[in-house]
């Protein structure tokens, strides 16, 4: 048992640290620390910069254009990125569809899509949820009918994050009716400019446009846009189960940024005394950081297991559960540190507001969805109960 990096790891850490040094614009930092995504243009530029360095896909194998890094290197890379207030890479292409394409996709699909994901030439969105299929995804009703050399899609998707930015969408649709609901579902790649596809924004309480409804009316896509075999789409999600522990791990590593944002906000002085110097505030911030630390220790174990090829059981779900809880408690602390000016969401006359606003409040509101998306906390509880507890 040991915690220490070896010489090669340390050299790699210095290399990554140097790459990030001084490269993150000041105006990104509050947003990044508050767990918000940057504007797509900024994220695309960031992704291109990583790709130019050969680091565009930190979790992919080399043969598909990834870095081939081992889990320790991934941990180091993410820790250094977090330390520098760099943003998290956009995950829908890199972590969700990319691995499915290189595992189940055709040679043509691999050659076409994978480099475009790494270079951020394609922004991907996920067409899974539907109005009647949320936590119970297998009840989805969107149909894809084979007509000649095309599939024709009809149905409605919802909670389609960044559909308004994306060039491509990966869609789960029913290609046949089977007795078992999970059967007869296929995974299809749909260009967003296809005829009959319409995106309608969903207004959310954080007043940031990040999610949408997508309507599919007789949308025709070539048969070659089917990933893997027809009717097997549901099972391809399983490749993600193993990877989702890495996504959860990455999220958790970036929580250290939030701790920094909170601490900076708590430097505010009241009656000449900084908030952070008040025992009650200091204790709450310390409690948050201790929980972040415990989560980081869980993540280290997870990465160690990944490195050994060991099964983590439902530990990815546990990290997601705890990470999302900490996003929420952290943003509450942050807002508390801002105080009365947390009410100044938007300047009506164009004057300057508090330096953390509106992002801190937007982050606090956005954090509410982290316990809902990607499998709600309640679903995570069910998964853990089923996979780990034998009850």
């Amino acid at each position: 048992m040991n915690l220490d990096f070896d010489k090669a790891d340390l050299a790699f850490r210095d290399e990554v640290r140097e790459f990030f040094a001084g490269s993150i614009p000041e105006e990104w930092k509050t947003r990044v620390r508050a767990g918000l995504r940057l504007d797509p243009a900024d994220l695309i530029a960031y992704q291109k910069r990583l790709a130019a360095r050969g680091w565009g896909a930190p979790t992919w194998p080399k043969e598909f254009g990834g870095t081939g890094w081992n889990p320790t290197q991934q941990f180091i890379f993410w820790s250094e990125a977090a330390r520098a207030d760099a943003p998290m890479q956009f995950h829908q292409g890199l972590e969700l569809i990319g691995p499915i394409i290189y595992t189940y996709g055709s040679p043509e699909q691999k050659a076409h899509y994978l480099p475009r994901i790494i270079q951020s030439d394609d922004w991907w969105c996920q067409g899974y949820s539907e109005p009647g299929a949320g936590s119970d995804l297998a009840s989805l009703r969107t149909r894809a009918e084979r007509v000649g050399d095309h599939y024709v899609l009809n149905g409605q998707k919802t909670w389609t994050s960044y559909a308004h930015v994306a060039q491509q969408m990966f869609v789960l649709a029913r290609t046949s009716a089977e007795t078992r609901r999970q059967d007869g579902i296929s995974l299809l790649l749909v260009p967003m400019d296809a005829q009959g596809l319409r995106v309608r924004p969903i207004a959310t309480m954080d007043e940031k446009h990040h999610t949408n409804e997508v309507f599919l009316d007789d949308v025709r896509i070539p048969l070659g846009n089917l990933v893997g075999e027809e009717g097997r789409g549901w099972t391809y999600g399983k490749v993600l189960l193993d990877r989702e522990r890495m996504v959860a791990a990455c999220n958790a590593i970036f929580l250290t940024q939030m701790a920094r944002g909170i601490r900076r906000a708590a430097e505010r002085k009241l009656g000449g005394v900084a908030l952070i110097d008040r025992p009650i505030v200091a204790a709450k911030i310390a409690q948050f950081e201790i929980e972040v630390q415990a989560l980081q220790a869980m993540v280290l174990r997870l990465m160690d297991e990944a490195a050994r090829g060991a099964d983590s059981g439902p530990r990815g779900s546990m990290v997601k559960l705890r990470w999302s809880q900490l996003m929420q408690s952290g943003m509450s602390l942050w807002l508390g540190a801002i105080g009365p000016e947390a009410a100044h969401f938007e300047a009506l006359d164009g004057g300057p507001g508090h330096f953390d606003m509106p992002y801190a409040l937007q982050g606090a509101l956005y954090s509410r969805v982290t316990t809902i998306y990607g499998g709600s906390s309640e679903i995570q509880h069910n998964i853990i109960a089923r996979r780990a507890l034998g009850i």
Partner: protein
Amino acid sequence: MDFVYSDEQQMLRDAAIRYGGDTWSVTARTSNLGTNEQWPRQRWAEMAEMGWLMLAVPEARGGLGGSPADVMALAEGLGRNLVASPFVTNAVLVPALLADAGEAGDEVLAAIMAGTAQAAAGLIEPDAGYNAASVATVATLADGAYRLTGAKAHVEDGGDADWFVVSARTGGSAADREGISLFLVARDAPGLTVERFRSVDQHRHARLALTDVPATLVAPLDQALPTIEAAVDRAICAHLAEAVGSMEAATDATLEYLRTRQQFGVPIGSFQVLQHRAVDMTVFCEEARSITYWATLSLDHPRLERRRAVSAAKVRVGQAGLHVTRDAVQLHGGIGVCEELLVSHHLRRQMMLEFTHGTSDMHIGLFEAANRALLGQAA
């Protein structure tokens, strides 16, 4: 980076689990502990025989020179079936306090390792909480010999100790970090009054009053505080491992109960509300185990990093242990509060561990102070 017990550590842990299961049954503990003075003595001899009491003692001093991870494996195993012995105090804390004692500590260490005598540490004083730097007990030197006068409010596991390692002031004033020295005091030394207490977890503690008690210096004069803090951190980590073993056992027992206990014609584990609470217990166990590894592996890191890691773990494991064992009792229902199930014993042990070497509240403060010092260094 790796978080796996070696084969040897695994064997150590398994041996401790077996020993606890074979010897420390609920019946044995409830009928013997607290009343039968002989019973714990016999158990102590058994632990010595297995070599466990020499695990953490450096090889140069006749021990096995085990690492913090070795101690973790053993302590976790002992926690699993709640072996209520003064293992951590005798075999981890005292040897670390005597690290620089030279020959003066040899007799005590040899006796501890052989299981023929016990020792404990008098480090905290009335009205000083857990602050080891707050020392009002005075050591005076006359005719080449030290004598101690003062009081120690709580001596963890001191109830059966034959020796006490006691902090006392040889310089400075009551709260100074400098001027603290460590002394060895025999249980039967003139001027020493020992009051003994039993705790709800069946550990046996003491309170000391010292009036001109003859004592032997066992650490660098005036400079003992760093030794004390480092030794206490080792003891804390061993207790964390014990706590992890205990809370995991309580969780397993609860899961088994959820699977077998029938109400309304079905196993109660089929109720989602109970499943989710059991999941939360499991997540707490995972957090506790993970942060215990991290703290244990930080024990040999520079002081501030060690402080930050150990205090963070003390806080989180304390919170986890209480949550898990309280819910273990709750999910068992009425039988959970009874003496006849180990579950109630796990709760009592976790409650007491929260008070051992500092509460969570105190360690939140220590964590924050170390955090700031480290942030200051980085800036």
